[in-house]
């Protein structure tokens, strides 16, 4: 800040003028290090492993950790499907389905993407009001939302994020982490635990009983 009016503009113009007469230079990156700041990560890109599978585990850590929320893994693209801002939605979607099945026992069939449909927000507003729009009560609000709608519609998650000011990545991250939540009506294929690879506690206990001989010793019982 200068005390003489117009001084700032003059200084700016000096720099412009000086640059104007300097020759253009090409830095032979990456052979020559242009002096990139240590925290620069460049363009975000998902890497493939030696088998050609995407290395991303769809754990949503990056989206949740990103301080400026430039990574929005729960975003919606023009086709009405999940996408990320970089890379093709299709490959990501494939990996996402596999990962969701492994981590939560819930497949994410394409049918689930159809649940962006607008919903009647009145029940959700009542839930929000009951919990003071407090993001700290998110878990309770998600439980009640599921009770009210039968599942967690994406529109409800978006609204929860909007009204509580909790980042969508956090709302979606929480909802997708806990096993009791489902994103499709219970009667939808894939919304039940059937065929889930992740053992439920009941499944584990049955296997444990079999292993200890305290229950029916089923043939082949053991690790599923």
């Amino acid at each position: 800040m200068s005390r003489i009016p117009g001084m700032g503009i003059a200084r700016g113009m000096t720099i412009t003028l000086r640059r104007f007469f300097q020759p253009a230079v090409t830095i032979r990156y990456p052979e020559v290090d242009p002096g990139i700041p240590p925290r620069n990560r460049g363009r975000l890109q998902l890497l493939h492993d030696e088998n050609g599978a995407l290395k991303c585990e769809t754990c949503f850590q990056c989206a949740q950790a990103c301080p400026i929320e430039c990574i929005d893994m729960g975003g919606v693209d023009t086709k009405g499907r999940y996408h990320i801002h970089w890379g093709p939605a299709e490959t990501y979607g494939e990996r996402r389905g596999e990962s969701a099945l492994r981590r939560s026992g819930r497949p994410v069939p394409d049918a689930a993407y159809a649940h962006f449909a607008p919903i009647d927000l009145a029940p959700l507003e009542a839930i929000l009001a009951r919990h003071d729009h407090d993001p700290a009560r998110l878990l309770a609000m998600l439980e009640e939302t599921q009770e009210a709608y039968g599942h967690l519609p994406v529109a409800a998650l978006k609204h929860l994020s909007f009204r509580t000011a909790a980042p969508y990545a956090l709302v979606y991250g929480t909802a997708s982490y806990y096993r009791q939540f489902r994103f499709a009506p219970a009667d939808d294929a894939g919304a039940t635990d059937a065929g889930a690879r992740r053992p439920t506690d009941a499944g584990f206990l049955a296997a444990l009983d079999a292993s200890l001989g305290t229950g029916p010793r089923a043939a082949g019982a053991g690790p599923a």
Partner: protein
Amino acid sequence: MTTLLSTPAGWPRVVTAGFGAPDPLDLDAAVAGGAFDGLKKAIRTHGPTGTIALLRVSGLRGRGGGSYPTAEKWHACATAEGSVRHVVANGYEADPATHVARALMEERPYAVVEGVAIAAFAVGATESYVAVRAEYGEAVRRLREAVARAEAAGLIGANVLGTGRDIFIEVRPVRGAYMLGEETVLLKGLEGKRGQPEQRPPYPTEKGLWGRPTVVNDVVTLGAVGWIVANGAEAYAAIGDPATPGTVVVQVAGAVEEPGIAEVPIGTPLREIVGLAGKMASGHRLKAVVVGGVTGGILPPRELDTPYAAAALRDVGAHVGSGSILVADERTCVVDLATLLTRYCADEACGKTIPCRIGLRRLAEIGERAVSGHARPNDPILLADLSEDIVASALCGHERAATTPLTSVLRYFRPELDEHLLRSTCPAGVCHPVAVASAGSAT
């Protein structure tokens, strides 16, 4: 309901004393039986610092698995920077095969409420929470009722016993995966976030619930606090092992005739604890005991003289964990059992870090290769190496503990493991793919 095993006369009963009361919610009967004596004494006689000092003398340690001195935890929280503090009672009981905490919450809800109230008084917390596994509907109901009745009687709530101090307790059902039992994860759950552990330090006593100094204690730990304050620290310190005194509530299950829970003095030999649950099921021979629940160590019969105390168990490669002791007879294949436990641990890991997300999965795969007859010659080396790496780089206690089942097999049941690895046979005849493979190839 889980049965309470009868213990020899003369064994003190601190936590399980009032079990089996006709109506656990009858406040008058509970008070006549000594409930809230500890709270009154803490408030009227000892004061906050006096109460913590008394607990230090008693030698009480956490029963949630870490065996951390309770007085140190409370002291750290009470002296941490901050104006608002919280107490969280951990009633999640992560281990799906254990019911110790549930039994306590259902049978003696007032003991839990009193313990939380004393902790809140000692550290200066106004709002405290009892986080209960949501599947334990009856425990949630009884605790809520107990809080309401105690509040109506002026034992907790606003202006407790005329001191001007407020002690509010909220019962919060929490639902989710195994990891919710871990303290930082539990706090995340209460805050409405996904359940993944936090780096420590800072410990919850500095930055806990909503960043405020927080005491997280197992409900079973808190269930003993009222008794200790009422009966004096010396009475508790006189029980069991002088180095780590007190009682511990264990659950004995598996191939025994009378599975159940029992309160035993710390330092009781494993053999004696297993004996409380009756004979081995129909004349079978004891082959191994899994000490510590799903992440427990699998010990052979010759280690049964080990005293049930944190340090001694650590030395033999087991831990207190959830307080569960599973008994296996000769029909069980320890490799199969360890693999099952490891697979469960791997599936329940939160996914936050590499040892958790990938390490445990690779570990479970080693076990699965062994039981399916696809083991590689260097698998034992890989198992030992990987376990070491996981323990060294783990973020939370789960990954570290999850290496226990398989490493204890490596330590104690190497011949049986080698049968799987080198000859593709299962001596116990449990691992079917292996047995089938041997029928075709061996002998």
